[in-house]
């Protein structure tokens, strides 16, 4: 088993020519931690991962792995292993050749290579594929081989660059479980890049949500889901997506509330981080599963989407659309009017201008 390593990214800045890709970024990953870099394409998450791997030079800042400054080390000297989105298997080598190439380059004795390849193959259940070429494998098998190639390096830090994006939904779910199991077994540090929020929520110890070259929020999946730091994180994480209602903050008879089109939603019980001024324009966010029936907010059902385990009702509150999760057996008809309750402790309030959580 590889030695345990923490990773520390300190003030890293990266530009391609005149284009700034990462803005002075700090991130500390603890030993054995599984951290997911989550964000839309172009947010800089893959760039950051490549910088940790040593495949891209940084313009400023340092990268430390296992207590050693590796900022200017070659990838092979950093104690890392990496799995790529396109698998990046060497097409002219067999599976065995792919897995052993790095060890051979490093000059490892043959029996040891053999032992490691066989062990990794057994772990990933690809032993019977060892003598095939990548072209003869399915997508899922290829990605297993790619993971195997990382595994034999016995590294302290594993880097995953959107490893499941090229797979179909079922295989993705299957391999996701496999990766999680692997993490538990190896107890290695893992940094995992994805744009899929479900992968992030299921795999991560902590998620770093990235957008526009910076980390928007760093926290456990629970924190990111329940208390998004800003409107972007709120909208990016969660499916079906969070609802947003534009309106204003007001204090009525000493109690804070949210006003939109003559409807007042009480906010007593909401944990303010920075209470806004009376009359400030704000946005209210609530997840579909947190909308409850039987309150004082009037709404009208426009459409119902059955989703198997439950159904999603599209309502209109004032002039604004709002979705609500209903049990599958609930009998709902489009056109029907209903009353809603938006519980204050499940609400999210964002500054309309900056998008920051209030």
């Amino acid at each position, binding site marked *: 088993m590889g030695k345990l390593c923490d990773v520390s990214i300190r003030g890293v800045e990266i530009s391609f020519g005149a284009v700034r890709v990462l803005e002075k970024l700090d991130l500390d990953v603890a030993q054995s931690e599984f951290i997911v870099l989550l964000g839309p394409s172009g947010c800089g998450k893959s760039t950051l991962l490549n910088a940790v791997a*040593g*495949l891209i030079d940084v313009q400023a800042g340092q990268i430390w792995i296992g207590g050693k400054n590796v900022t200017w080390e070659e*990838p092979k000297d950093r104690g890392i292993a990496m799995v790529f989105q*396109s698998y*990046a298997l*060497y*097409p*002219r080598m067999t599976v065995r050749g792919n897995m052993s190439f*790095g060890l051979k380059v490093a000059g490892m004795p043959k029996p040891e290579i053999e032992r490691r390849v066989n062990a990794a193959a057994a772990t990933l259940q690809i032993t019977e594929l060892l003598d095939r070429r990548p072209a003869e494998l399915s997508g899922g098998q290829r990605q297993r081989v790619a993971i195997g*190639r990382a595994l034999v390096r016995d590294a302290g830090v594993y880097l995953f660059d959107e490893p499941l994006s090229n797979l179909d939904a079922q295989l993705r779910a299957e391999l996701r479980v496999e990766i999680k199991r692997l993490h538990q077994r190896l107890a290695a540090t893992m940094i995992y890049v994805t744009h899929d929020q479900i992968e992030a929520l299921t795999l991560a110890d902590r998620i770093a949500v990235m957008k526009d070259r910076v980390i928007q929020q760093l926290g456990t999946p629970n924190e990111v889901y329940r208390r998004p730091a800003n409107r972007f994180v709120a909208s990016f994480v969660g499916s079906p997506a969070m609802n947003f209602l534009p309106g204003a903050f007001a204090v009525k008879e000493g109690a804070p509330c949210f006003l939109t089109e003559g409807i007042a939603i009480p906010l007593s019980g909401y944990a303010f981080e920075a209470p806004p001024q009376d009359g400030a324009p704000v946005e209210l966010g609530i997840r579909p599963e947190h909308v409850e029936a039987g309150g004082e907010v009037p709404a009208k059902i426009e459409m119902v989407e059955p989703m198997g385990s439950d159904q999603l009702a599209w309502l209109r509150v004032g002039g604004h659309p709002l979705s609500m999760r209903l049990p599958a057996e609930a009998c709902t008809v489009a056109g029907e009017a209903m009353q809603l309750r938006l519980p204050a402790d499940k609400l999210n309030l964002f500054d309309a201008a900056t998008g920051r959580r209030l």
Partner: protein
Amino acid sequence: MSAIAVTQPAGMRPRRLTPARIGVYAFLIVTALFFLTPLYVMLVTSLKPMEEIRLGAILALPRAPSLEPWVKAWSAACTGLRCDGISVGFANSVKILVPSVVASIAVGSLTGYALSFWRVRGAGLLFGALMIVAFVPYQIFIYPLVRVFAFAGINNSILGIVLIHTIFGLPTMTLLFRNYFASLPQELFKAARVDGAGFFRIFWSVMLPMATPMLIVAVILQVTGIWNDFILGLIFAGRENLPMTVQLNNIVNSTQGERAYNVDMAATLLTALVPLAVYFASGRWFVRGIAAGAVKG
């Protein structure tokens, strides 16, 4: 570049045999005959004795076909005072061809690889400049090159002409391989680097095996190109090493007395044989090759 690979016909779906379709076939057949005529005439002429040729029926099949002109062209045709046939040129061309093809592809593939995966300062500029000079006519460089080669003592030698073919093959070969390598996933290169492979190791173990299609294309391109070269061989190979094309031209265009057209045509066919063989053996690869070489950039 790979879009050149010919796939399904995309034109209008045919509707039985309409006048328009008959027109299409007529056009294709007439043009095909026009394209085939020179090859046919070369062949029949080379098999006729001179008496038959003097009759002038250029399209007629030989009445008394004979391989004698071929034998003569190969081993006894004269250039000036020497009558060794075109076999001398054939041998010279082979001697020039083999090292030139190997050297130009080796240098070109390595350069293309270095340009596509390694961020070397000024690589973009180097590549752009190579692309531009691929279009420049040789006449610009020839005189200074002759002087430099003479100074280095390698003019009029096999080494000299091989070097010349390597130099002038460099832009096209680099382009070919750079574009191919640039089309490969960058992640493959990253994976090899994480595996700890260095510059040459990645080239030799990972990239070159993947570039087999481009290697075939490059070989086709260089074999036909170098075999068909005339001007460079004429100037840099030296009197002893003149390639087949130069010798052919000397045989045909400088004969004293009555010209032996049958021998001339046999010699011409012999010279065309290597590229024709490459062409017909390689099939669609040839199309890919010229297309790849054609799409500069």
